[in-house]
């Protein structure tokens, strides 16, 4: 069991690196071309968890009575969910439910999970749904490396390169010292 989890984690790490570099669509298209069957239609795509119910999420949303703007956002999310690009694994759907303190241990498929997610999603505002959609492509727990890179990148944007990196130009007054944060402002 542990060995299997570790293999899954390794696979997820490799895929994350590929998705970061090439983007989700390119990686997916490439994987599917490797199978030799060409690019499958999204509705027929099969997720990692074996959930092959085509359009199940969209069908559920269509049966919902909600204001039109919210419906449009729910449909957009449902389309991505059915494609497998939103909450791509069963674990992601479980994480959403558990973060709302909803039991998710006995859930066996993503389509089953969506049935439990929908009442929570239907109670959200348009802004809240937009947030969920924008965050839903991520799979798995937070990757510290990605967060560290983002912090480093934003830091260089705000403060200039780190002290141990070569400065873009030589400034006699500041050479040999670390960057003066207070002079550069904080935001």
């Amino acid at each position, binding site marked *: 069991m542990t060995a299997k*989890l570790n293999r899954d984690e390794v696979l997820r790490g490799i895929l994350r690196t590929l998705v970061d570099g090439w983007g989700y669509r390119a990686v997916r298209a490439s994987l599917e071309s490797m199978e030799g069957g060409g690019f499958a239609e999204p509705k027929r795509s099969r997720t990692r968890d074996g959930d092959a119910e085509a359009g199940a999420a969209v069908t559920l949303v269509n049966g919902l009575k909600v204001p039109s703007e919210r419906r449009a956002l729910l449909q957009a999310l449902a389309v991505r969910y059915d494609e497998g690009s939103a909450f791509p694994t069963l*674990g992601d759907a*479980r*994480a959403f439910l*558990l*973060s*709302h*303190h909803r039991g*998710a241990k006995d859930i066996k498929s993503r389509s089953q999970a969506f049935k439990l997610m929908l009442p*929570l999603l239907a*109670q*959200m*505002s348009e*802004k*809240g749904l937009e*947030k969920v959609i*924008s*965050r839903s492509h*991520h799979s*798995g*727990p*937070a*990757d*510290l490396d*990605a*967060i560290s*890179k*983002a*912090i480093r*990148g*934003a*830091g260089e944007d*705000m*403060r200039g390169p780190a002290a141990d990196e070569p400065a873009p130009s030589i400034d006699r007054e500041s050479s040999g010292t670390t960057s003066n*944060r*207070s002079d550069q402002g*904080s*935001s």
Partner: protein
Amino acid sequence: MRLAARKARVLGGALGVGMAKTGPVTICVINLKGGVGKSTITALLSRYAFNTRNMDVLAIDLDPQANLSQGLMHQSYSTFISQRGGTIVEVFNDYVPPKPGSGGAQPLTAEAVTELILESGSRRLDLIPSRFDFSDALTNAVRPDPRILARFLSKNFKSKDLILIDCAPTESVFTTAAYHASDYVLIPVKPEFFATIGFPLLAESLANFRRRNKSHSIEVAGVVINNAFYHGGNDGGPEKQRAMAAIRKECATNGWHIFSKQMYHSRGYPKLMRGDYSYPGDADLFWTFAKEFFDHIGL
């Protein structure tokens, strides 16, 4: 008992007094010693208050290390940082800096600095995230106004039920800012040799604040024993017993309540903070402390 007056004020309706709710209860989670679980406790109390107690919650990350922000936003924190979303830095600067096409600096609004974490109907769990350059405010020539946070919260978040502030482990102007905004202080402590090192510092810090702000009522809600990150586990043997004796003595000296429910040692806590729900372990029992805590302060 000490919290009864506040309890009556907050829950006037429930007690049959018919008083209106006056605003959120604000609690800062603090210990002037690091690594005691402040961010984890703040994140989990926020979620519990939202999900189980049906509260409208605001969590505030007052630590430049931004662990609370990462624990509530998970992977989206990296996108947020890259896109330069609004943070506690802007609250202390009291304006939103110019962005391309924004037409210069903008007035500070609640929306500009809050991130939605959870939502259900009209209730939300919002976060004011932190950013690494928040610490620059401590080294800049001009120190920020410590009352600016309290003013901002009183103007923008009166409709919230609960505000939780995760403090940095070093005393600074941000600590004072947290005190100015807070009704209560919650103190997590790890039962080990260095456990009580932060207590005298914290007691002195609170005493100084009270001396300078006589009209401000701020109480210590209590001390929570956090075994979560303690290598000795829940039992801990004689080392834990010694640490607990020191903790009890310090708490008695300061008149601080110790919550009876401890946080159990569990690998599930760091997993939850990463957004990994595959194995909560005994972290699943955090609610036992959370329930006692909210019952104690009357929420």
